[in-house]
C-alpha cells in the first residue's frame, strides 16, 4: 500500500490530491506505467514525464529511483515558489 500524491495541474488532471495504491512497482517509472494504464486522466497527466517531478517520501527523486520501502510518492510539475 502506497500513498500517491498529486500537486498543481497534475492534481487537477487526475482529479484527486491523494490516493492509496496497491502496487508491486519496483521503480517510479513502473508505477507511472501502471497508473497510465488505469484511465485516460492518468494517461493525460503522465503524458510527458519531462514536465514532471517526483518525490519519494518527501525527497526529490528520479523516475528510475527504486520504490522499495517507500510509503509516499508525489508527482508534480517543476516548482515555482519564491
Amino acid at each position, binding site marked *: 500500500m502506497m500513498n500517491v*500524491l498529486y*500537486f*498543481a*495541474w497534475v*492534481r487537477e488532471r487526475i482529479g484527486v490530491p491523494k490516493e492509496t495504491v496497491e502496487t508491486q512497482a519496483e521503480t517510479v517509472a513502473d508505477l507511472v506505467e501502471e497508473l497510465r494504464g488505469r484511465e485516460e486522466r492518468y494517461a493525460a497527466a503522465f503524458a510527458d514525464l519531462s514536465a514532471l517531478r517526483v*518525490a519519494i517520501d*518527501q*525527497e*526529490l527523486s528520479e523516475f528510475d529511483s527504486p520504490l522499495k520501502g517507500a510509503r509516499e510518492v*508525489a508527482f*508534480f*510539475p*517543476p*516548482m*515555482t*515558489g*519564491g
Partner: protein
Amino acid sequence: MVSISISVQDTAFDAGAMLNDFSNENSQVGAVISFTGLVRDTPDNDLDRMVIEHYPGMTERALQTIADEAAQRWDLAAVLVIHRFGDLHVGEQIMMVATASRHRTAGFEAAEFLMDYLKSRAPFWKKEFTKSGAEWVDAKDADEAALGRWSAD
C-alpha cells in the same frame, strides 16, 4: 551555531517587522540582507489573485535542507525563511529570505543561494487567476539554470 528560522504560513506577514526583529536578534554581526518576493501584476494588469499550493511536510523539510546547506557553506549567524501559501493579491509579500553575517559577501551569496534553491527545489506552485482564466505559472529555465553556479565550488 547558526540560528535557522523557517515558516510556511497562509497568513500575511510584515516584512519590515521581521527584518527589524531579525536585525535585533543578530546585532553582534554587521551585515543583514533580505530578499522579499512580491505578487506582481500580469502584463495586462488583470491579476485577480494568486494561489500558492504547496506540499505540507516536504516543504518544511526542503526549506530546512536548503537553509542547513547555506549555513554550512557560508559563515552566517542566522538564516530566516518565510513563505506563504494560499490566496495572495497584487503587491502582497509572497516570501522573504534573510541572512545575518559578519561579512556582507557571505550574506549576499547565501541569500542568492537560498533564493536559487528555494525557487527550484521547494515544493510550491503558483496559479494566477485573471479575467481571462486561471493558469499555472510555468517554471523558468533560468531558475533551474541558476543552480548550476553553486555546484562548481
